[in-house]
């Protein structure tokens, strides 16, 4: 599996931001087109193939527009955008937890078919579906904060400092969240015999 590398801000990001803050909608559109795929991918990994990902992506950019005035260039623009994306995703996860009716099994929220290649054989599709269900069930057992830290660090491959900046926590706290998430996942894997079979 190819791990995504840490994001690097383009050199003209600050200029685009300054123009967007000044009211240049074209500049903001350029920011959107440059980062929309990343935001959508991060939302997918944080939430799974959630049906509301597009709405959440729009919310991210709607929140980003006024927030750009606060962007001083201390971090890369993608990190700044990831920060907002993670916040939106965590809020959505909390909402989703409150409405337990939309469970993974019910399929009201998660669209697994969107992530299954239609070219696979039925058996492979079933295996892939089961794999996704297992993975998302494990993730659902984590709290939103631990889940975000784990995905950013272990799946997105960001450094602890970047994770800390994105989740707005001290690097030690971010490291602790990742460690706690890994411990919880290990415990859950050990507890479930069905999951042991998948090892």
């Amino acid at each position, binding site marked *: *599996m*190819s*791990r995504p590398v840490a994001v690097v801000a383009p050199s003209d990001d600050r200029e685009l931001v300054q123009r967007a803050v000044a009211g240049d*909608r074209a500049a*903001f*559109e350029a920011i*959107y*087109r440059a980062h*929309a*795929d990343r935001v*959508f*991918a*991060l*939302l*997918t*990994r944080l939430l*799974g*193939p959630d049906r509301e*990902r*597009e709405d959440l*992506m*729009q919310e991210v*950019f*709607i929140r980003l*527009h006024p927030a750009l005035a606060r962007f001083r260039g201390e971090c890369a623009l993608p990190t700044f955008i990831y920060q907002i994306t993670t916040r939106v995703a965590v809020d959505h996860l909390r909402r989703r937890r409150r409405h337990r009716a939309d469970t993974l099994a019910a399929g009201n929220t998660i669209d697994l078919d969107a*992530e299954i290649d239609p070219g696979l054989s039925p058996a492979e599709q079933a295996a892939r579906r089961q*794999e*996704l269900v*297992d*993975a998302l069930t*494990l*993730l659902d057992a984590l709290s939103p904060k631990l889940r975000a830290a784990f*995905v950013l660090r*272990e*799946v997105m491959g960001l450094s602890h400092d970047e994770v800390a900046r994105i989740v707005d926590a001290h690097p030690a706290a971010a490291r602790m969240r990742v460690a706690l998430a*890994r411990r919880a*996942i*290990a415990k859950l*894997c050990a507890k479930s015999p069905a*999951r042991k079979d*998948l*090892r």
Partner: protein
Amino acid sequence: MTERHLVQTLGSLEGRLDDVRREQSWRAIDRALDAAATAPVAPTRPARRFAWPIAFGLAAAAAAVLAVLLVRTPSSLAVAPTELVAASGQRTVLDRDGITLTLVGPGAATIDRTDDAVRVRVGHGTLVADRADTAPSLAITAGGTTTTSRDRKFAVHVSAQTIVLGADERADQIVARYALLETPSPNPSPSPMLNPTPNPNPMQVPMPMPVPAPNPSSTPNPPPSPSATPLSSNHASAKTTAPATPAAPERPTASSPASEPSTATASSAAPDATPSRPVPSLPEVKLDAVELYRRAETSLAIHDPITARALLEQLLRDYPEHALVDAARYDLALMARTYGERARALELLAQIRTSGRDANIRAAATRLEEQLRGSR
């Protein structure tokens, strides 16, 4: 599934956004930003001013309510309970709201004041209360039982063996039996019944003898208000046993000539007492060895080693062949060692070693004896 498998699965989630959806999303964002830009700015509300007059009014009302509550609070909250303590042979006097409380030591009591009564909790010792007519009621708690009285005179004696309480004549009797045997105090007692009588040996504290409740069958004329509350049906007897110390005065009894002076003193000094009515004689019961040892243990538990020692000595005298003799000797030896009476301790331990029947106690006595000899 393992963590590695989980990471791989999540990493395989591509989340591709096709061009159509991307364009749709941008149009939605653009519209939303336009709507936000053209939306009328909500008028800012003026900053709320803190309502100082209302705050002052509330504070004043709270202070008034607090003042009223403090005024109406029972005096027990204003006056903390008073601890009354009297050492052996001493008397402590306290006047509380028209009630003169005299505690004859060794003893301890707690005096508290509530709305309706002066509450006295007697832990140990003899307490005499002289109550004025206008004074509030007196609630005396002894041995877990509370008795409320409005009598002019009330006395209670609490020891490891007995709890005796009574009013008027009965109070005089209690005073004559217990308080007058104590060492006189240089402080004058407010109660005429507590005027000290000469004690032949002021250093000796006589073992308090329990006073059982008057037996109606043996006393044709019971006292006016007997309310003695013995702890058990058995009562110590001074008549059948020798006193703990040779110089200890005999207990006064109504029939014995030696008791006449104290009884007469009590009768003549108390204005309410009726001299014509004889104080009933009290039956005396000999305690068995087990009861003596049990009471000695109780005395030790409430830190009254004098009584405990007297009871154990009595056990040795009265029941020299009893199985508890070894234990009594060992306890006495421990007490003697504590009080620096090394010779007495060694004597008792030697007796255990030579004639003791309990092997465990013999072994303990031997060890203690070796310690005592080694510490010389």
